[in-house]
């Protein structure tokens, strides 16, 4: 069951990722990315990371991608369709990407034995586990309090930066 879910979500993810990169229209690209992110969230849920999955959907899809779409609409140039979509080094980049993927996969496969063990119960995700969010929250406010605060400052800074950067007169 879990395996089937995994493969379905994985395929979706990869498909949507490829489409994101290949889409000519940026809006389409954004929508494909949203789809990919949603598949990713599904995978998160499958892994029992409910909080992260929820945050993924809420922040990533609901916030970041909306922002992307706004900006796409702002900077959309009329003749965008006519121009080239890829730059001059795309062949090299493609090759490099394939090589990189092969290398990384090779790395993983080589080290797979270290990770191989009995999988912990597949029924795990189906049980209502309210403990995950709580636990994560608890961690955030205890052990990882400082990074939490810094993250909030970071967001503040980003907000200020965004405002400053987009002023008419710098």
């Amino acid at each position: 069951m879990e395996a089937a879910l995994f493969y379905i979500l994985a395929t979706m993810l990869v498909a949507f990722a490829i489409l994101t990169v290949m889409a000519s229209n940026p809006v389409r690209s954004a929508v494909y990315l949203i789809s990919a992110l949603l598949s990713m969230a599904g995978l998160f849920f499958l892994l029992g990371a409910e909080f992260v999955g929820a945050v993924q959907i809420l922040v990533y899809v609901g916030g970041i991608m909306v922002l992307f779409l706004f900006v796409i609409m702002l900077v959309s140039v009329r003749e965008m369709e006519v121009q080239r979509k890829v730059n001059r080094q795309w062949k090299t980049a493609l090759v490099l990407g394939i090589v990189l993927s092969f290398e990384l996969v090779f790395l993983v496969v080589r080290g797979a034995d270290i990770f191989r063990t009995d999988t912990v119960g597949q029924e795990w995700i189906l049980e209502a586990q309210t403990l995950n969010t709580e636990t994560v929250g608890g961690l955030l406010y205890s052990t990882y309090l400082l990074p939490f605060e810094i993250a909030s400052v970071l967001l503040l800074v980003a907000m200020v930066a965004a405002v400053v950067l987009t002023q008419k007169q710098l």
Partner: protein
Amino acid sequence: MLDNIWLIPLFPLLGFLINGGFGLWKVARTGTRPPKPFVYCVACGSILLSLLLSLSCFWALLQLDPQDRIQEVEVFSWIHGPAVQTIAGELANFKISWGFQLDPLSAVMILVVAGVGFLIHVYAIGYMAEEEEGFYRFFAYMNLFMFMMLTLVLANNYLLMFVGWEGVGLCSYLLIGYYIHKKSAGDAAKKAFVVNRIGDFAFIIGMLMIFTYFGSLDFTEVFHGVEEMFPMPEALWGPLCWIALLLFIGAMGKSAQIPLFVWLPDAMEGPTPVSALIHAATMVTAGVYMVARSSAIYSRAPDVLFIVAVVGICTALLAASIALFQQDIKRVLAYSTVSQLGYMFAALGVGAAAAGIFHLMTHAFFKALLFLGSGSVIVALHHEQDMRKMGGLRKHLPRTWWTMGVATLAIAGVPGLAGFFSKDEILWRSFSNGHPLIWFVGVLVAGMTAFYMMRMMFLTFHGEERLSPEVASHVHESPSVMTIPLVILAVGAVFAGYLGLPAWLGPNVFEHFLEPAFETRYHAAGETVHAAHSTEILLTLVSVALAGAGIYLAYYFFLKRKEKAEQLRQKYAGLHRIIRDKYYVDEAYDFLFVNRAKGLGRFLSAFDNNVVDGAVNGSATITQISAWLSGQADIHIVDRAVNLVAEIFEFLSTVLRKIQTGLVQRYALFFVIGIILVISLYLYMGV
């Protein structure tokens, strides 16, 4: 008293230093000359002191026994040289001392030199009275000359004598060339010095040989050594003969014998007192003195003595012949001096050294007198020396006339006067020592001497006046300061001869006095003809007759029938010209030696200019070229290298600049390439 003989040369030296030093200082500081009376007093006073001291030393010498009459005084040790091996294999030190020696020979010399020198100095006060610029220089040099001459005759070794020898040559140069504004004077001075030098060269070699053989240059030691090493007279061309010959060549230069006589006539360019002192009475007699002093050497080299005699008599003949036709009054006297010097050497050569020195003494008197008298004439005629422009001066210059007349008769050999006795002694000895030919030529020369001397007298003082008008109005007798020395010398010219009476008349005081100084075994290569007094008287009559003939002929040709002289001159015009022009000896020397030397000088100068300077300039050019090359190397090589380095960097930067595309995606590509490489590295290393 005899210990003070070293003072005799010192007084004139002081006179030279004072006059010369004070004069130079004064001219440099103030531009004016020292006061004339001061200069005169210093100059003449120093000679007077020397003369007085010489007289007293002479007197002291007379007090000693004849065989003890030698006194040496060493002033200081001059050269102390290393030990050298002589021919005999002994070690000898080259030790020379500044030492003086008084014996009969040097006593005679200092009396002659100081006495005649003093009179000439006094005379020179009058003669040089008109000089304003250089008179202190003149008197300083005259004093220096006296110092050198006295050192020469008083020296006790060859080297010190040579010091004086060179010194008188130097002073001769300085004084002949006294009139510095006349080129001919400078040329004559140079000629005198150079010709002298030729003789001096031989003299030095002779001295070196003496030292090599005898280990010393001191007279006493050398003569002792000669006695030991050469008990018998030497045959031709042994070492002693060479020594004698070389020394004689030195004497030839100094005393103007053939072939080195050419400087003496030219030396007449100097002021007349100089001609009188140096070229009549003293310097030219230095050669005679030296040969006489070295009698120990010469008596053992009889063949060289013969050469001496022959050279002497030939010189006498040659000079007398030239004197016959000279127009300049001083030239006549100059050639006469050369001729009389020839007589002296002939005397030495035939073995009559005392006679030679005797003639030296009498000649000093009358030749000095003749020169001073001619100087008086010249001054009276405002420096006219050509006898063709003289005549009838007897009226105007009486004192000059009679004193010169006495001297002329003396030199002509008129009996009763000094010259007769000394010349006759020489002629008799030539004959009696076995050289009749020398006697014959000597008599001939005596006749010629009488002739040309009387000619001079007649042309100058008698006959019609041929003076130029402006001179004729001013002519008058010279002042006393000039004429009194003339009188004193005339007295000497008359009475000095009585010191050396011939054997048939009385004792020869002079010869007896000089005996210890000469080798007793003194003979030339010839048979001694033991002749009686009668022969001597006969020969004397012959020479007197010839002298008389000479005087009469002069009277005939130059007073009575002058036209006959002219006729003869035209008849033998060619011969006349040759003799009058001195047989073209000077011209021959010019061609043979002078022009060769000048050519060498020109060649060397051209060599210096082209080769040496060329080399120097060439090295400068080479330096220039190498500098240019360095510059070029610097420009082309060094600068190129530097530019090349810059160009490499330019090239590299041009290449590397292309990486900076400004495209961020390109940079990202490089990232990924790097990542892949790192991962590959990990994989390779077996992570």
